[in-house]
């Protein structure tokens, strides 16, 4: 008898655990669609959109924001096809996408700064030189006007949004394959990139603008300093807009979510990690 009872209990425990694991992913499907905004697109924009959505849902409990990160191109296509209310993109639209007549809302700007050790005399690099350094074609600082010292390339891990943007912006991609030198030091997160650059004289790395401080020196790219002003004016090229795309006519719920993003509160959230646009 005891054995039967205990084995029953175990069985119940196992089945409930399994159903708990598999069940969660389907919860969202049952809700009614009238108050739901679907936001689809770039994985880089997803965390920001999600964070603002939490605040938005607190203020508007009747509206649900459903966010999916599937990549910029897929997001742009989805809103054009009318599958999603809002498409997210972390890059500028391509010429053919421009023709689709979508409305672009720049919600924030992400700047990527290239930085070196404070003792490094190199302070200005052309975009082309940056590409060559990260490819491994230039391996000594003396080749770019610095001291005779090996260049140590510090990069983020594969899949990182900052790395994806950087590789795209400085032309380090070829058929989706990364051209980054294979022996680059890989650091996890912007903070770790900063710590590695700060402790190694020959290091060069890239990181999100918000992480710059006095322990490392950002280099000018083609003579332009990476600052919020230069990014806003478009002079600093290693930056990308975070876009929300809509197709007319815009649903009032969607409009209120967009308005919320552009409000002081929404832009404050954007300003935590990115360059706010207002």
């Amino acid at each position: 008898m005891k054995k039967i009872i205990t084995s029953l209990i175990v069985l119940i425990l196992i089945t409930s655990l399994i159903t708990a694991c598999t069940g969660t992913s389907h919860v969202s499907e049952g809700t009614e669609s009238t108050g739901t905004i679907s936001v689809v697109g770039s994985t880089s924009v997803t965390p920001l959109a999600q964070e603002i959505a939490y605040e938005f849902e607190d203020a508007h409990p009747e509206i649900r924001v459903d966010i999916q990160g599937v990549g910029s191109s897929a997001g742009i296509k989805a809103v054009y096809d009318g599958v999603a209310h809002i498409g997210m993109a972390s890059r500028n639209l391509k010429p053919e996408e421009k023709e689709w007549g979508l409305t672009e809302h720049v919600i924030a700007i992400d700047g990527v700064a290239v930085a070196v050790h404070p003792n490094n005399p190199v302070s200005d690099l052309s975009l082309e030189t940056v590409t060559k350094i990260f490819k491994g074609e230039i391996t000594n600082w003396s080749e770019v006007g610095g001291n005779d010292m090996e260049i140590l390339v510090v990069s983020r891990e594969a899949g990182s949004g900052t790395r994806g943007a950087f590789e795209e912006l400085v032309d380090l991609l070829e058929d989706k394959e990364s051209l980054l030198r294979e022996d680059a030091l890989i650091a996890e997160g912007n903070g770790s990139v900063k710590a590695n650059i700060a402790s190694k004289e020959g290091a060069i790395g890239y990181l999100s603008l918000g992480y710059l401080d006095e322990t490392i020196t950002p280099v000018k790219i083609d003579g332009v300093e990476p600052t919020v002003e230069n990014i806003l004016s478009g002079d600093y090229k290693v930056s990308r807009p975070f876009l929300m795309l809509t197709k007319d006519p815009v649903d009032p719920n969607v409009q209120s979510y967009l308005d919320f993003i552009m409000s002081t509160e929404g832009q404050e959230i954007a300003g935590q990690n990115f360059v706010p646009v207002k």
Partner: protein
Amino acid sequence: MKKDIRIKKFYEKTVETWFLLCAIIAILFLGIISIYLFLEGTPAIFKIGLKEFILGSKWMTSAEIFGIFPMIIASIYGTLGAIVLGVPIGIFTAIFMAEIAPEPIVKIVRPAIELLAGIPSVIYGFFGLIVIVPIIDNIFGNGGNSLLAAIIILGIMILPTIVNISESAIREVPKSYKEGSLALGASQIQTIFRVILPAARSGILAGVVLGIGRAIGETMAVILVAGNTPLLPESITDRVRTMTSNIALEMSYAFGLHQEALFATGVILFIFIILINVALHLLVFRSEK
């Protein structure tokens, strides 16, 4: 009277069942973790191809090339290095504490080693990053983040495991062995190396195997000091990425096949851990015999 016994019996049974349930929970979680890991990981191995996955030497996620051979090698080198560095120091410390040191010194050394075991691994990693990595950078150049830095940190991290288990193994050697050896005219050092260590061999080996388990599974400290380059190391000062670092580094961004490949890395690591545990059990079994 009879009723009293019944209540007592019922109470006993309830407590027994409760303990049984607790024991089952541990096993249940082990089971769920194993099942989940293999369900998530093995499909990717077959999608990528077992040979390409285990023996492939290129890890390029954007192009969907997943080869973890450099990481397997890095995990093995890192662990072997830690053993080479940590085991002699650990065993000599254990001998010192069990046989040579006077009681007051043991009272200082033992808590120190126990404290070493309690330091969180991220602190070891941080220490490595700000102390050991710059030293290696000064001597060998190339940034300092390297296999060598990982070996040094892991060597320190496995010390407590090896010292504690070896020390109790040495203390368990019957007094008569030592007395007999000394009575036959052997010196203390001869006694330690010829009599006590061989007698405590299986206990010491168990400590070493547990140390291997700790070294191969360590993640945070290694990520901070090893440089994480997914290339086959050609020298001890090259940057390496271990299997655990690979999973921890990329899991937060991965999706699709990339994520499955990380689970698959976990499967391979899990198999390594199982093998180490089997080895441990065989050793313990032999020593009990």
